[in-house]
C-alpha cells in the first residue's frame, strides 16, 4: 500500500493562495490523477485557504498549515488556521451564506469544497481556529 505525507506552513497572504493549491496538486501527482481530479483538488484547497485568509484572520498575516496524506488511493487534505473560528459551522456551510457580501463573496466556498471532494469535515472553536479536513479517492480503475 502506497503511503506518503507532507506538511506546509505559510503566511496568510493572498499571494500564497496559488502557491498552496499548486503545492497540493504537485503532491497528489503520485496518485496519477486525471486533469479534472487535479483541478477539483486545487479548487477545494483554494477555497479553504481563502476562507482562512479572509474570514479566520480577516486580512492579518498569521499562519496557515496544510497537511496532506496519501493512503492507498485516498488523498487527505487538512487546512488549519488559528484565527477567530466559526460560531455556527452548519450555517457557514450553507450555500450562498456569507458574512462578507459587501466584499463580493459568493458564499460558495464550502459548497465548492463539498462538490469537488468526496468528503468535507469542518471543526471550529471560536477564538482558537478552524480545521477543514477533506478526502478524495483518486481511482486507478479507469481506462487510459
Amino acid at each position, binding site marked *: 500500500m502506497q503511503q506518503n505525507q507532507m506538511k506546509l506552513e505559510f503566511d496568510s497572504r493572498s499571494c500564497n493562495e496559488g502557491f498552496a493549491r499548486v503545492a497540493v496538486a504537485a503532491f497528489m501527482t503520485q496518485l496519477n490523477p486525471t486533469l479534472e481530479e487535479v483541478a477539483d483538488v*486545487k479548487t477545494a484547497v*483554494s*477555497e479553504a485557504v*481563502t476562507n482562512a485568509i479572509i474570514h479566520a484572520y480577516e486580512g492579518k498575516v498569521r499562519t496557515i498549515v496544510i497537511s496532506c496524506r496519501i493512503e492507498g488511493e485516498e488523498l487527505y487534505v487538512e487546512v488549519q488556521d488559528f484565527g477567530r473560528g466559526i460560531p455556527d459551522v452548519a450555517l457557514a456551510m450553507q450555500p450562498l451564506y456569507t458574512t462578507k457580501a459587501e466584499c*463580493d*463573496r*459568493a458564499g460558495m466556498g464550502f459548497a465548492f469544497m463539498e462538490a469537488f471532494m468526496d468528503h468535507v469535515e469542518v471543526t471550529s472553536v471560536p477564538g482558537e481556529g478552524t480545521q477543514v479536513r477533506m478526502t478524495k479517492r483518486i481511482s486507478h480503475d479507469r481506462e487510459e
Partner: protein
Amino acid sequence: MEQVFTISGTTMTVHLPAELDHHNSEQIRKEADQLIRTKNIRRVLFDFSRTVFMDSSGIGMIIGRYKTMRFMGGMVAAVCVSEQMRRILTLSGIYKVIDIYEGIPQQMHLC
C-alpha cells in the same frame, strides 16, 4: 504585463488572467469598478480565453459586476469559456443570470 481591460464605445472587455482566485479577483474588481463608473460602460465581457483556474472568488467578482451593470441597465457576458471553466460557472448557478459562450458571438466584438 498583458492588458487586462480594453474599452470600445460602451463595451468593456476584461481579459481574465490564467488563474482567477481571491488574490487576482480583488485587483480586477477595484479597477473594473473604477472604469465602469468613469467610462459610461454598458456592457462587460469577461474573456476567459487565458483562464485555466477559477474558484468561488472569481464567481463572486463576476456576480458583483453583474449586479452593478444590471442596476445601470447594462449587461454582462462570459466569452471563450472552456469546458473546465464551464463546470465552475454551471456549478455556481451563475449561468442563470449571465450568458456564457464557448467562442465569441458574432454580434459581440472583443476589443
